């Protein structure tokens, strides 16, 4: 068996973009469950309407966010800033956009029977407090979530997608603020 110490050298180029790039934006949710697909829709919107700089990793991670967060917690290379886009039921008005500070979420034991139930909030807090990554969460209040598989956002949440995109771009890469359509009109 090879000596296990030979694993210590890690080529940075082997690391995924969400570890190497200074800014990471993750759209989270299940597009098969109505407004739960908000985060993914915002990522799609930004990709379609703005120029995303090379320093930003913008990903629709769907329902796979835990695996990425695990990797970030363990990786020797991490972004400086991480933004999570997600839908949530917090009792507000449907379509309302607001920030959640992971530090304000009390440490809890969430389902950990399997990878399917790992506590995302705990992973985010670990990244923020132990790994010194600036973590922000932009949430959108959902309308009533379907009890059965049903793709598509409600009108209120759908209207919130461009607003969330505009906010995200303004916060994380303001030089790309003009939507792609305007840029094309100027240069073409």
């Amino acid at each position, binding site marked *: *068996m*090879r000596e*296990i110490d030979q*694993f*210590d050298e*890690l080529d940075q180029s*082997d690391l*995924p973009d969400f*570890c190497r790039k200074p800014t990471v934006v993750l759209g*989270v*949710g*299940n597009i*098969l*469950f109505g407004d739960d697909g908000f985060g993914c829709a915002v990522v799609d919107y930004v990709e379609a309407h703005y120029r995303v700089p090379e320093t930003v990793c913008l990903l*629709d*991670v*769907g*329902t*796979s*966010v*835990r*695996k990425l967060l*695990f*990797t970030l*917690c*363990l*990786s*020797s290379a991490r972004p400086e800033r991480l933004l*999570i886009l*997600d839908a*949530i*039921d*917090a009792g507000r008005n449907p379509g309302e956009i607001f920030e*959640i500070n992971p530090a304000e979420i*009390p*440490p*809890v*034991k*969430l*389902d*950990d*029977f*399997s*990878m*399917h*139930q*790992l*506590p*995302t*909030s*705990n992973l985010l807090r*670990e990244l923020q407090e*132990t*790994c010194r990554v600036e973590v922000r*969460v932009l949430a959108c209040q959902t309308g009533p979530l*379907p*009890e*059965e*598989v*049903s793709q598509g956002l409600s009108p209120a949440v759908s209207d919130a997608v461009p607003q969330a995109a505009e906010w995200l771009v303004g916060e994380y890469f303001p030089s790309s603020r003009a939507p792609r359509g305007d840029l094309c009109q100027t240069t073409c």
Partner: protein
Amino acid sequence: MAKTLVIQPVTRIEGHAKVTIQLNDAGNVDTARVNVIELRGFEKFCVGRPVEDLPRIMPRICGVCPWSHHLASAKACDAVFGVDPPPAGKKLRELCNSIAYMEEHILHFYFLAGADFLLGPDADYSIRNVIGVLQAAPDIARKVVKVRHMCAHMLEVLAGKAIHPQAAVPGGFSKPLAPAERDQLRKNADDALELAKFSIAFAKENVFPKYLDVVKSLGVITTGFLGTVKENGALNLYDGKLRLMTPKGAYEDFPYDRYTDFISEHIESWSYLKFPYAKQWGEGFSMDVENPKGVYRTNTLARINVCDFIDTPLAQAELEEFRAKFGRPAQLTLLYHWARLIELLYNAENTIRLLDDPEITSTETRVKCTPRAARGVGCTEAPRGTLIHDYTTDADGMVTNVNLIVGTTHNNAPINMSVTQAAKSLIHDGKYDQGVLNTVEMSIRAYDPCFSCATHRLDGKLSVKLDILDADGKLMGTLAN
């Protein structure tokens, strides 16, 4: 006075699970139930869609095992279209399956089960987490990170993307593997094999002996087993025939498209999730821990039990050692973790074997498909159990019916039985504490269940809440983390 204890993880619309333990008047466990909500309405969602859309939609069901759903769906489409993918197409699919398995099993052992074993089942939940394991075993954590990165990178090279795979298509695989890419992946595969060898050696020396008493006692039940084997009886996680084994080890093999002849589903009023059982045994269904009927398990331990041998040398040697210790079939629930490591080793060896196969770089990776009215069944072994996708289409290839049986569904009855056994052995005379409840959860965790995919709860509400109700259902008190 009789009491009901409830362990209630946080709910989410598409999935929640709770454990309800009913104590009798003497304060001993009467019954224990694990209530889950399964994914609902999926059949309706799929009806009317072109069947070739399903391999693209299915990975979105589950963010943890997307490849399993992706491949089972592609295989079901192959059957619907009546096509047999070329050898390279099948081998590329199997290669992706093996790599995805490695990533999954590494993560599960080190950071789910690992937290139980490396930090102890009574460790406070605030340190039974990723950073806790990292701090307890930093060198191991570094190796794990590197290999997981590599596995994700390998999947990107093979399939274009690691998240939400789309490369497996009806009729084969959309992207051939170039020789230069294969050479790159071959080096990565060697590193993965080293970690697999290290993992099982580490566990056999430092983990399993320490917890052997727990392994021998926690959640122990006696059931049959279901898994996939090749024609010659060898373990295979991508394709083969199904083998249904009785608790005593007798078995019957059948093609997976005949699963409805062997398996039926029982319904309980207190659970949304059905209880598949082996109707072929002719004994009906019962979850009585002392006298179960028709109950079988899937997942790692089942696959290790049903196969006659493993056709990769290192994993075969581990299987022989395992069987010498625990027999065949092995029944101890926590042996799922040991079996998971044997599978990790098999998948690492299988990855190398496939990459060394000259056919893997063939450019003939798919065949043409023509819509027709048909029924097709696709079956693979997902990490957490036998996964069946059953599709029916009309003459235009539009879906008219879908049936899915996921791994955890097969394990619904065994999970309930293991929890009952664990609760009965640990709670006496009405006495219990958080450590006891954590240990009950360990018996569930061994199955690595999927309580409805796609959970990613963010709002951090309290998860473990214990409501103590009297026999009339009146709330007497609440304990919570």
